[in-house]
Structures are given as C-alpha cells and as structure tokens.
C-alpha cells in the first residue's frame, strides 16, 4: 500500500464522527423540524401566490 493511500485511509478514519446522542438523534430531529418549517413557509407563500391565502 502506498504512503499516499495510507494517509488517505488514516485521514478518512480519523475524520469520522463518533456516535453520540447529539449527532445521531438531535441533529436529524432538528433537520426535520427545519424542513417542516420550510414547508410551512412555502405553502403559505404559494397560497398567497395562488390566492388561497389573502394578500392585501
């Protein structure tokens, strides 16, 4: 195995994020909350565009 591939493997191995509650549970939960919030904002905006949500 070449020195450069050793270095690549070591770099890849050392940069892997260890398991934790924060990383494995909290971050995906927060991503889902933000995605839902984005969806709600978009539905309101599209509703305003199509006339379903009143715009003065």
């Amino acid at each position, binding site marked *: 195995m070449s020195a450069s591939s050793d*270095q690549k493997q*070591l*770099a890849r191995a*050392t*940069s*892997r*994020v260890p398991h934790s509650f924060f*990383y494995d549970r909290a*971050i*995906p939960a*927060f*991503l889902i909350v*933000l*995605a839902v*919030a*984005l969806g709600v*904002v*978009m539905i*309101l*905006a*599209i509703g*305003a*565009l199509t006339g379903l949500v009143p*715009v*003065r």
Partner: protein
Amino acid sequence: MLHLLPFSSTLVTVAFAVAVFSRYFRRGSAHLLFWGIGLALYGLGTFSEAFLGLAWSSFMLRVWYICGAMLTAAWLGQGTMYLLVRKPGVVNGFAIGLAIVSVVAIVSVFLAPMTNVAYNTSLPASVQYKDILTRNALMIVLTILLNIYGTVLLVGGALYSAFLFWRKRVLAHRVIANVLIAAGALMPASAGTFVKLGLTDWLYVSELLGAILMFIGFLQATSQQLAKAPAAQLAQSS
C-alpha cells in the same frame, strides 16, 4: 427602543458581508460574490428599516421594500445554487434571469405611486407599507416568487448540505454550520408570519437573530478545525 434593533442587525450584516467579500477576493468563487451581494442587500434593508424608525423618507421606504422584501433572499439563494449545482451554464442562466427580474423589481418599486397616509415612525415599516406604497400585481407576484426562489435555495440547500455531511459522518462542524444557516435564513423568511400574528417586535428580533445565526454558521463552515485533526494525527503517527 426595539425599533432601533435593525441598526444592530445592520452592523452584524455588514461585518458578515465584509467577511464574505474578503473571502471572495481571496478565492474568487461565484457563490461568495452572490452571498456578498445578498448580504449587502440584507444590510441595506435593515438600515433603511432602522432609518424609518427615526424619520420618514419615501426613498428609504422604496429601498426597504426592494432590499428587505424583494431581493435579499433571492440573491443569497442564487449563491447557494452556485455552490451546489455543478452545471455552470444552468446556474449562469438563472443568475442572468435573476438580474433581469431584479432590475424589473427595482424599476416597478420606484415607479409605484405613494398615498398620502402619514407614516408612524414608532411602528415597523412592514406594518404600514401596504397603506403607503401602492403595489401593483406585478410587484406582489415578483415579491412572492423571489422569496420562494431564494428561501427554497438557501434553506433547502443548507438542509441538503447538512444532511449529506451528516449521512457520511464527516465534517461535523459543517453539519452544524448548515443547520445554523438554515435556521438563520428561516427567521427573516417567517417574519411576515410574526407581523400577521401581531408580534411586530419579534420581527426585529428575528432579523437580528437570523443574521447572527447565519454569520456563526458561515464562520463555522469556513473554519479549518476538523480538517486539521487528521493532519495532526498523521504528524503524530509519523
């Protein structure tokens, strides 16, 4: 006192824009240029909002509407498109389209007539502008379309990037950075909802928090903290 909060938002946004532009001048990436322009628009929007909290100016109300309500999200989102989409022809096409639409938006706002309704400096511009600035259908449609375009790209792009890094279990600081950017970008995007709920003070807070969160996210994303870790361990193992 809260109506002076936009001055704080302006300071944060200007610092953020300077950081992005200085990185652009070092690296020359198009996404940094568009983010820098978007942040300059954000700063102009919050500055004109702060100005309108002190004195009335029809010019400042138009600047506030163009920057604060129409263009900021779209230009920031265009930066994200440059970052994520690897087809230069497509992205450049959208950028040219955005530039043309932006010119149309600016012209339409400056041609829009104003009523004689008195402006109250103790209330946010977003509460009163509809009574003062006569918006035609084109302005309303452009405002909504530009905000949809920008918010989907900016927030959706940040969430997508965060998910990719999270799934690969690499560069945890970039996962957190993108979560912060998505959360920060959603704050001003949902400001209209706050106004409709009567929480006009929260509008200013959301603008400031949005700028702070995105700035922290940007600093976090551009930090080299974890990239150095493998190199340090390589040095130890050699």
